[in-house]
C-alpha cells in the first residue's frame, strides 16, 4: 500500500505569482478529502502537484515516506487523475482508447466490462470526436479505472455530467474507496461531494482556511 500522503508546507507559483501558499495536510490511507474553494483558489494546482504534473516550489509532498517528485516515475502508476481534459485520442473509439492506454501502461483490464460500468456501449465504433461532453467524461472515467489506483485525484469531476452520471461517478469513487484507495476531489459543489468525502480542505487565494471534518462545515456552504 501507498501509505499516508503528507503535504508538508507546500507552496507553488506560476511565473511570479504564488498560487499555493503554505498548504500543510496529512491524508491517511483510505481517507476521502474534498478540496473546496472559489475559482483560482489553487484547487487544481494542488491536484496538479499531487499528480506529479507540477513540481512544488517550496515544501514537499511524500507518499508512504517517499518524496513524490523524486520517485514520480514509480508512483505515477499508482496515482490516477480525472482532470479537466479527458486525455483521450479524438480519432479512436472509446474501446480503442482504453486498449491503447492499457497497452502503453502494460495494464491488464477488462475493457468491455469497464465501458459497461461507466454506461458506454463497448460495441460502439464511432470515434470519441462524436461523443457528447458527458460521454467523454464517462470515457475518461473508464480510462482512469484502467489503473487500479491507490491515490485517486478528481478535478471538478461533476462537470458536464447529468444526474445519472453524477450518481455513477459517486458510485465508482465509493467503490474505489472501499477497495482501499485514497481520494482527493477538487470541487466547488460541497453538497455533491459529501456523498463520498468525510474530510475537507478549503482554499482561499492559495491558502488553506479550513482543514478537518466535513461535519464542521455549514450545511449551506457554497462556492457558486
Amino acid at each position: 500500500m501507498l501509505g499516508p500522503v503528507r503535504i508538508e508546507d507546500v507552496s507553488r507559483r506560476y511565473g511570479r505569482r504564488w498560487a499555493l501558499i503554505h498548504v500543510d495536510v496529512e491524508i491517511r490511507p483510505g481517507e476521502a478529502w474534498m478540496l473546496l474553494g472559489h475559482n483560482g483558489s489553487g484547487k487544481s494546482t494542488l491536484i496538479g502537484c499531487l499528480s506529479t504534473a507540477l513540481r512544488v516550489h517550496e515544501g514537499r509532498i511524500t507518499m508512504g515516506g517517499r518524496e513524490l517528485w523524486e520517485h514520480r516515475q514509480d508512483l505515477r502508476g499508482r496515482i490516477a487523475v480525472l482532470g479537466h481534459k479527458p486525455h483521450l485520442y479524438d480519432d479512436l473509439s472509446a474501446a480503442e482508447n482504453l486498449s491503447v492506454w492499457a497497452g502503453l501502461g502494460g495494464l491488464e483490464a477488462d475493457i468491455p466490462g469497464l465501458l459497461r460500468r461507466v454506461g458506454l456501449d463497448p460495441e460502439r465504433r464511432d470515434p470519441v470526436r462524436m461523443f457528447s461532453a458527458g460521454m467523454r467524461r464517462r470515457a475518461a472515467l473508464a480510462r482512469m479505472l484502467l489503473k487500479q489506483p491507490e491515490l485517486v485525484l478528481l478535478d471538478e469531476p461533476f462537470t458536464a455530467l447529468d444526474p445519472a452520471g453524477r450518481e455513477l461517478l459517486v458510485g465508482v469513487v465509493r467503490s474505489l474507496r472501499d477497495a482501499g484507495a485514497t481520494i482527493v476531489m477538487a470541487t466547488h459543489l460541497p453538497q455533491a461531494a459529501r456523498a463520498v468525502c468525510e474530510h475537507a480542505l478549503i482554499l482561499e487565494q492559495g491558502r488553506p482556511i479550513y482543514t478537518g471534518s466535513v461535519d464542521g462545515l455549514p450545511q449551506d456552504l457554497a462556492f457558486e
Partner: protein
Amino acid sequence: MVYGRWTISGGMITIAIGLLGLLYLLVVGALGLRPSRPVLPVAWEQPMGLVGLVLFVIGNALGLFYAPAERFMGETGRILYVHVPAAWLTMVCFLVAATAALGFLFSGKRHWDSVVESACEVGVVEGVLLLILGSIFARPTWGVWWSWDPRLTSSAVMMLSFVGVLLLRGIVRDPDRRATWSAVATILAGVNVPVTYMSVKWWRSLHQIQSETMKGSAIDGSMRWILYFNTFAFLFVSVWFLARRYRLAEARAEAEMPEPLPPAVPRPGVTA
C-alpha cells in the same frame, strides 16, 4: 588548414586564452562570487572593453597601413586580419553557449541560462560580422559575393541554428520552460556544427574546389603578430559584450523572480 600551419597554433593559443577568460567570467558570474569590496568603481568588464576598443583601433590601423600587401591576394588579403579573429570568436561564443547549456541541463541553475542567452546573442552578432566580412572577401577573390565554400556555408548554417535559439527564447514566456528548451536547442545546434562542416566540405569539393584558391595565402610569418593583436582586440571586446549581456540577462531574470512567499498566517476556524 586553409590558412596554413601558423593559424592552427595561433588559433589554439587564442582559444585557450579566450576560454580561460570566459572560465573566469563563468566562475565569477555563474557562481555569484563577488569580491567583498569592489576593486574598481565600475564593473570589471568596462575597462576591459575600453582596452579592447583601443586595441581594435590600433590593430585595424596596423592591418591596413603597417602590414605589407599580401603575396597572392594583394591589398584584399588585409581583411584576414579581422576576418580570422571574427571567425575564431564566433566559434568561441557558440562553444561557450553549448557548454553553458549542458551546465544548465545538469545543474538547473538559472545563471547558466543567462550565459546561454548572452553567448548565443554575442555569437550571432559576431557571426553576422563574419559573414559580411566573408562576402566582402569573396567578391574580389572569387568574383562572387557568395561561394559554396564549406567554411562559408557551414558558418551560415551555424548562424541560422543559433538565430533559431534566440527566436525560441523570444517566443517562450515562462522562464523555466524557456531555459530548458533553449538549452536543448543550443546543444543540438552545437553538436551539428562539425557535422555540417564535414557534409558541406564533401558536398561541393567533389565538383569544384574553390577553397583551394586560398591555399598558401598565409600572411607572412613576420606579420602574424598583427593577427594575434587583432584577435586579442576581438577577444577583449567579446568578453566585454558577453559580460554586459550576461548582466542584462541576470537583471531580467531578477525582474522575473517570484514574489517573496507570503508568510504563513494563523488559520482561523481550524479544527483537528
